[in-house]
């Protein structure tokens, strides 16, 4: 088996290397054939592994393959841990990646960076495999950084676009915050367990009992720090600001990286760490609340977006919030379940959006579309499947996963769970509203497409429509078929630990579950279903039936609208705190100089404060040597005073 696991990871890497170094020589056709072949091999083998582990209940594979370094007793290795969780992730990642590879042939057809792009996405696939297959924290972190790096490269892929570069930098910087939190968490894990291996860490969790750090339990601090990492990668409030910006990258990577796989790495990581999170109710509550905030408020932002990709991006944020909520209420398998269904239908929606964008000659404003249904039938029907799955229409994939999340919250006994329940139910309405608003505006109603584009409007090439169909099928049915084994029949049991006595959500869920088919008629009697119907109806009214009402509402509630359109001021807040704050700090000591990127992002208007404090502190580096000398000697005096008088050493008592 070991060789099979290795092949899964290395096949895309090989493809990436060949495409990266010899792409120019081989030409386009050979390049995409090789990379697709690499991913195809991985996909087939991933299915085999899935069969072996999940269906045939094979043994968990946990082995170090190569020792990277050995510091004292600390061993850092490259190793694989293949259990059912990993198997599920492997299938999802490889399948979506394969679809995106195929899709790219059509989508990037007219781009100069064709071979480079294939190389990047194959490299990404490799990194993602390493991340999910890891058996230790270090490799997890490396995979984490590697997927991040490829993601930055791809966001800035069209680097002649100013906005792409800015988005790229923003993604990099915001993720640094998350990554360092994550790294600190890993450091603390290392500190208490002396190891980075998952199995060893989980078996030494007893060491943390009754240990305190900063007034919190040690395990809480660790979980919170790890969760900061997850917040960065999985774009949870307030570290979510990079994800909408990342839409500047080509659409295939929005589907692969920023919807289906990389952004769910945080969800995966928390599930992997379930033995740790289970020990801390405080951490779980934080996870749940952050998730609920993200789910609700990011959905609201989706309503006011007019860029087709931005709408899907905000919906991704909101769905990630749902997954995080599921993690918070200890329904890890539900989170992974939603991760899986979401990967399919969100990749589908993104690729569908990409298909529309190509047809519209890279016009992304949904106000300038409309009536595309007739011109693009395949895109239309697949997008309908994706949308229904997203809003959780009974029977579709998203229905099962989302319904389970809502029910899980309902049963949770954590503090604030009640509020979170209302938030996620309200989220259903909002999801339905923005999804169908976009759907109606794009595909229905009168055409608002300009004349020139209208003439050339036609269905996309087969390499684009094939992945759409291939993704539409699981989006429709996968929930129905997998809900029972995945949640209640132990597919994930050997990877996830739940303290069933304290956190009862999963037990309660299995009590009320009577089969996938029975859920559909039952759903009609529940609140979420009617919220969804209400959302669709509202969307219909505002975008098709009485479009002028939308304007009226917008005018009437311009303040709310402003808050939404300015993204709740989060961007501005982050600019001030993370970028501007640092900048100000620098300015306090130094003169304002006009240069580069930081200035462009940073807020203006700090000049007066800067001038004042600057005039006080500026003599430090005046260039005059006597000031330097004075500063040195002044520091000496302060240090002397501190050292000699801080302790019980009264200087005056010395006698020689």
């Amino acid at each position: 088996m070991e060789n099979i696991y290795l092949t899964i990871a290395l096949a895309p890497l090989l493809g990436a290397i060949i495409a990266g170094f010899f792409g120019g020589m081989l030409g386009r056709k050979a390049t995409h054939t090789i990379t697709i072949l690499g991913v195809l091999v991985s996909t087939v083998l991933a299915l085999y592994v899935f069969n072996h582990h999940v269906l045939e209940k094979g043994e968990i594979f946990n082995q170090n393959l190569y020792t990277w370094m050995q510091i004292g007793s600390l061993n850092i290795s490259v190793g694989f841990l293949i259990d059912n969780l990993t198997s599920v992730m492997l299938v999802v990642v490889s399948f979506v990646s394969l679809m995106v590879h195929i899709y790219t042939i059509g989508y990037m057809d007219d781009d100069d960076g064709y071979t480079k792009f294939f190389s990047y996405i194959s490299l990404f696939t490799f990194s993602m495999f390493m991340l999910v297959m890891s058996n230790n924290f270090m490799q997890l972190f490396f995979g984490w950084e590697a997927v991040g790096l490829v993601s930055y490269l791809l966001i800035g892929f069209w680097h002649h676009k100013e906005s792409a570069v800015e988005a790229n930098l923003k993604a990099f910087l915001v993720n640094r915050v998350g990554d360092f939190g994550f790294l600190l968490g890993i450091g603390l894990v290392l500190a208490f367990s002396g190891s980075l291996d998952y199995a060893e860490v989980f078996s030494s969790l007893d060491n943390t009992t009754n240990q305190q750090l900063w007034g919190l339990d040690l395990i809480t601090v660790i979980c919170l720090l790890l969760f900061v990492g997850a917040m960065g990668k999985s774009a949870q409030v307030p570290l979510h600001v990079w994800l909408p910006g990342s839409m500047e990258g080509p659409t295939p990577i929005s589907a692969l990286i920023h919807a289906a796989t990389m952004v769910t790495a945080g969800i995966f990581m928390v599930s992997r760490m379930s033995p740790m999170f289970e020990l801390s109710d405080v951490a779980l509550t934080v996870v749940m609340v952050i998730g609920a905030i993200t789910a609700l408020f990011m959905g609201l932002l989706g309503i006011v977006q007019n860029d087709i990709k931005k709408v899907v991006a905000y919906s991704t944020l909101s769905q990630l919030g749902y997954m995080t909520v599921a993690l918070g209420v200890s329904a890890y398998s539900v989170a992974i379940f939603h991760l899986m269904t979401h990967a399919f239908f969100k990749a589908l929606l993104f690729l569908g959006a990409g298909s529309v964008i190509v047809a519209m000659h890279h016009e992304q404003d949904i106000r300038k579309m409309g009536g595309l249904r007739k011109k693009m039938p395949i895109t239309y029907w697949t997008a309908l499947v994706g949308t229904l799955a997203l809003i959780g229409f009974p029977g579709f994939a998203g229905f099962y996963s989302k319904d389970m999340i809502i029910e899980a919250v309902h049963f949770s006994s954590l503090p604030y769970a009640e509020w979170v329940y209302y938030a996620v139910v309200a989220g259903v309405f909002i999801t339905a509203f923005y999804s169908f608003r976009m759907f109606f505006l794009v595909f229905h109603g009168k055409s608002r497409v300009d004349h020139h584009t209208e003439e050339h409007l036609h269905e996309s090439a087969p390499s684009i429509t094939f992945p759409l169909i291939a993704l539409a099928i699981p989006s429709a049915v996968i929930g129905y078929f997998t809900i029972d084994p995945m949640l209640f029949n132990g597919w994930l049991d050997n990877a996830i630990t739940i303290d069933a006595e304290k956190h009862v959500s999963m037990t309660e869920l299995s009590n009320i579950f009577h089969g996938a088919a029975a859920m559909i008629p039952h759903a009609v009697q529940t609140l979420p279903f009617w919220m969804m119907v209400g959302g669709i109806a509202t969307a219909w009214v505002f975008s098709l039936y009485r479009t002028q009402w939308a304007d009226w509402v917008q005018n009437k509630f311009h303040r709310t609208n402003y808050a939404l359109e300015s993204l709740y001021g989060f961007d501005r807040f982050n600019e001030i705190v993370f970028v501007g704050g640092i900048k100000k700090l620098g300015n306090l000591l130094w003169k304002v100089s006009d240069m580069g990127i930081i200035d462009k992002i940073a807020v203006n208007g700090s000049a007066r404060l800067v001038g004042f404090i600057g005039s006080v502190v500026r003599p430090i580096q005046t260039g005059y040597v006597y000031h330097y000398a004075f500063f040195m000697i002044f520091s000496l005096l302060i240090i002397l005073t501190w050292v000699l008088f801080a302790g019980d050493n009264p200087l005056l008592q010395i006698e020689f």
Partner: protein
Amino acid sequence: MVSLSDYLILSAVIFCIGLVGIFINRTNIITLLMCVELILVAVNTNFIAFSHFLGNEAGQIFVFFILTVAAAEVAIGLAILTLLFRNKGSINVDVTNSLKG
């Protein structure tokens, strides 16, 4: 009988004069060099005093080395001073502030 502490206080005073001289002086770089010398003299006083009262000659040997190094240091200092004068036409401390921030 002059006690050890008398020597130490003397040297501390010289040391402080040297230090203060460096940043109080805002005119001439040669004064800077003289202040540096004062600091070294203070240290030498310390060493000799300790050496004498400890009955241990290592401190006095150290002083010889410090004297030698001080001579070399002054030679280099004056050389830099000459170059400065050639470049800026002045040996005023205030002329050296083009590097800052």
